[in-house]
């Protein structure tokens, strides 16, 4: 509830054109050469002091990538991306192991402050309220420069570090799980990522451990022309639990920026992973110019029995979103969940959804998708629910609701259902609605202005998903959704 008021204040303060986080941080960057080649990959891998096998793994991906064609089945269109015009390596200048926040470039800290990430406060708060602590592994461009709370996590036995560090410190774990959920050749963007991934987070929660705090990574694209290829790998060993938060912002730019991340989750027997995303990258200006291209492969493998993976996402940004966080329900009695809010305004194009692949016995999944389209945007839900021959008693419930604001936007629902097992029970519900003039008039008559009224009605529409988010993300998300819909009425 207080979020609504905050939302309104924020909405007031922002113009569609003045993307709040559209500032460029002035830190000298070290860049590699432009272009995609074996040389680039070797340079990148060498820069990161990677083991031989990793370099080979990348090169193998590159060779396969060179044989692939860009997919075109999604309901999105964009000018061709020149992969040879991108840098595949950029790092803030002073990355040599800051031991504490004091050693971190003040400009960088200022950037995070503008983004509203009170790193310092969190450390101070740490002593007070351990339960509410958030550990931040801050990714600035390609290299993780600040990691907090490491000591405490170490005490619990939880490994939370950058992939680069994990490659040095825990190579066996990385080798065992990397690419085991999203194979190198899974799809065009995932293969590209495998060849040139820059950095990202690594989490390992050992057997029986409940991670003592929510883990959070804030991504930020900063260098012009630097394609971002994050790689995240999270493993919850038997009986472990972890909740992971991912949030993104990016500076305003004229040129489109490519982002092709890969996220892999592995849940072993009785383990649970909760992965929440708030994505608000620059969507382009009011004429549709600029904005991030977001082509992401996110997949969770419920590898063990009774395991559970749940994806919750709030997607408000990017010019183009191509994203299908999925669950492979391999273990018997495993469960997958997907809760999504996708907001599109202006000229944004969203093609997003999920896949629930039922392989084990008595597996269940739940999909709640809320799409909100405004302006001239296009918003497509694309989902696949499938039951393998051996997946007896597979259960799925899918609900896809679309809300249209204005006359020029579009919403599409493309559900695929495949069942090779007669005991499977799949339910699908879909609705499309509009904010009615009567609802608007009623709210205005009670004293709300148009923006307040839309914010309220939209928050009502997405409530089921917002409730799935951790508290701090829930508040932030309500704000973001309202900011994203600014200027969509009247």
């Amino acid at each position: 509830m207080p979020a609504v008021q905050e939302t309104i204040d924020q909405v007031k303060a922002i113009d569609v054109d003045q993307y709040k986080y559209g500032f460029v941080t002035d830190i000298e960057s070290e860049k590699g050469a432009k272009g995609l080649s074996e040389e680039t990959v070797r340079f990148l891998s060498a820069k990161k002091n990677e083991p031989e096998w990793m370099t080979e793994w990348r090169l193998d991906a590159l060779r396969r990538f060179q044989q692939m064609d860009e997919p075109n089945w999604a309901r999105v269109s964009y000018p061709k991306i020149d992969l040879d015009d991108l840098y595949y390596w950029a790092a803030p200048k002073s990355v040599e192991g800051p031991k504490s926040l004091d050693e971190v470039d003040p400009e960088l800290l200022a950037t995070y402050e503008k983004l509203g990430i009170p790193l310092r406060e969190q450390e101070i708060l740490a002593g007070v309220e351990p339960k509410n602590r958030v550990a931040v592994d801050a990714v600035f461009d390609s290299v993780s420069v600040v990691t907090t709370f490491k000591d405490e996590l170490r005490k619990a036995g939880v490994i939370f570090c950058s992939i680069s560090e994990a490659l040095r410190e825990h190579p066996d774990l990385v080798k065992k799980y990397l690419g085991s959920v999203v194979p190198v050749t899974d799809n065009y963007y995932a293969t590209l990522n495998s060849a040139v991934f820059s950095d990202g987070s690594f989490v390992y929660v050992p057997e029986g451990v409940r991670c003592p705090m929510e883990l959070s990574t804030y991504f930020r694209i900063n260098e012009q022309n630097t394609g971002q290829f994050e790689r995240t790998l999270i493993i919850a060993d038997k009986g472990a639990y972890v909740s992971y938060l991912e949030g993104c912002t990016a500076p305003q730019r004229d040129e489109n920026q490519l982002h092709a991340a890969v996220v892999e989750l592995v849940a072993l027997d009785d383990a649970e992973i909760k992965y929440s995303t708030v994505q608000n990258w620059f969507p382009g200006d009011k004429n549709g110019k600029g904005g991030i291209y977001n082509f992401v492969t996110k997949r969770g493998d419920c590898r063990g029995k009774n395991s559970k993976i749940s994806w919750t996402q709030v997607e408000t940004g990017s010019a183009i979103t191509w994203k299908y966080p999925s669950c492979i329900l391999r273990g018997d009695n495993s469960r997958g969940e997907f809760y999504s809010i996708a907001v599109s305004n202006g000229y944004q194009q969203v093609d997003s959804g999920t896949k629930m692949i039922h392989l084990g016995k008595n597996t269940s999944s739940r999909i709640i998708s809320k799409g909100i389209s405004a302006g001239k945007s296009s918003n497509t839900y694309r989902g696949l629910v499938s039951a393998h021959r051996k997946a007896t008693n597979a259960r799925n419930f899918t609900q896809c609701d679309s809300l249209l604001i204005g006359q020029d936007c579009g919403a599409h629902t493309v559900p695929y259902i495949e069942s090779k097992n007669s005991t499977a029970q799949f339910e699908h519900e879909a609705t499309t609605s509009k904010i009615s003039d009567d609802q608007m008039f009623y709210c205005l008559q009670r004293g709300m202005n148009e923006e307040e009224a839309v914010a309220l009605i939209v928050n009502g529409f997405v409530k089921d998903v917002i409730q799935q988010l951790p508290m701090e993300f829930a508040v932030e998300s309500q704000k973001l959704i309202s900011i994203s819909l600014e200027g969509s009425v009247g």
Partner: protein
Amino acid sequence: MLEIKNLHARIAEDETEILRGIDLTVKPGEVHAIMGPNGSGKSTLSYILAGKEDYEVTEGEILFNGENMLDMEPDERAAAGLFLAFQYPIEIPGVATMEFLKTAMNAQRKARGEDALSIPDFMKRVKEAAAHLNVSMDMLKRPLNVGFSGGEKKRAEILQMSLLEPKLCVLDETDSGLDIDALRVVSDGVNKLRSPNRAMIVITHYQRLLDHIVPDVVHVLSKGKIVKTGDKDLALELEKNGYADFIDAAA
């Protein structure tokens, strides 16, 4: 408080004239009842007061505390103190009644340059007002008007009215759908709001509401015009004889 002068209005879409020269003056502290046959324009009048876009004023003016109300947006009218209890309250899915109340109250406060209510202050006000109207905590947690019974919707309207503390209350058939006990509860709620600096316009078809909320003035609206004005006895007369006398007289 309210001065309506020679008000003519039509439906914006097809230009059908609905109101054909209404004159009405309501002073602070007064309660006016408006009665009249179905389709005579009572709800239309209330919507035009509140600023609904579907209608177009072609002639005349409306002054609210001396200000030209036709120049104001619906939310400005609300913040200035106009409240309309809808004949058919609108459902707002997913928005808890409580949340709606808070958003509305704070929106009006903001428009008037006042601070937002603190949570404890807000809760205290809601609990008090809800208790008077027999509105349960459970109902306050449910999405506004979604699945509410007819009577519950009307009680929710009056709950909003008492929390927003308007200067001019327009009640459109608030009695319809209420059982006998609820009618008393709601009427008591409305009567509690009567005060020397607040005025009310009560639209109704039935004397039984006016037994509880006793009006100072009663008007008969027919075919978009006020054809008769009297005191509370006029309502009793109508109850006995119907509208025939007045409608014929106007024709």
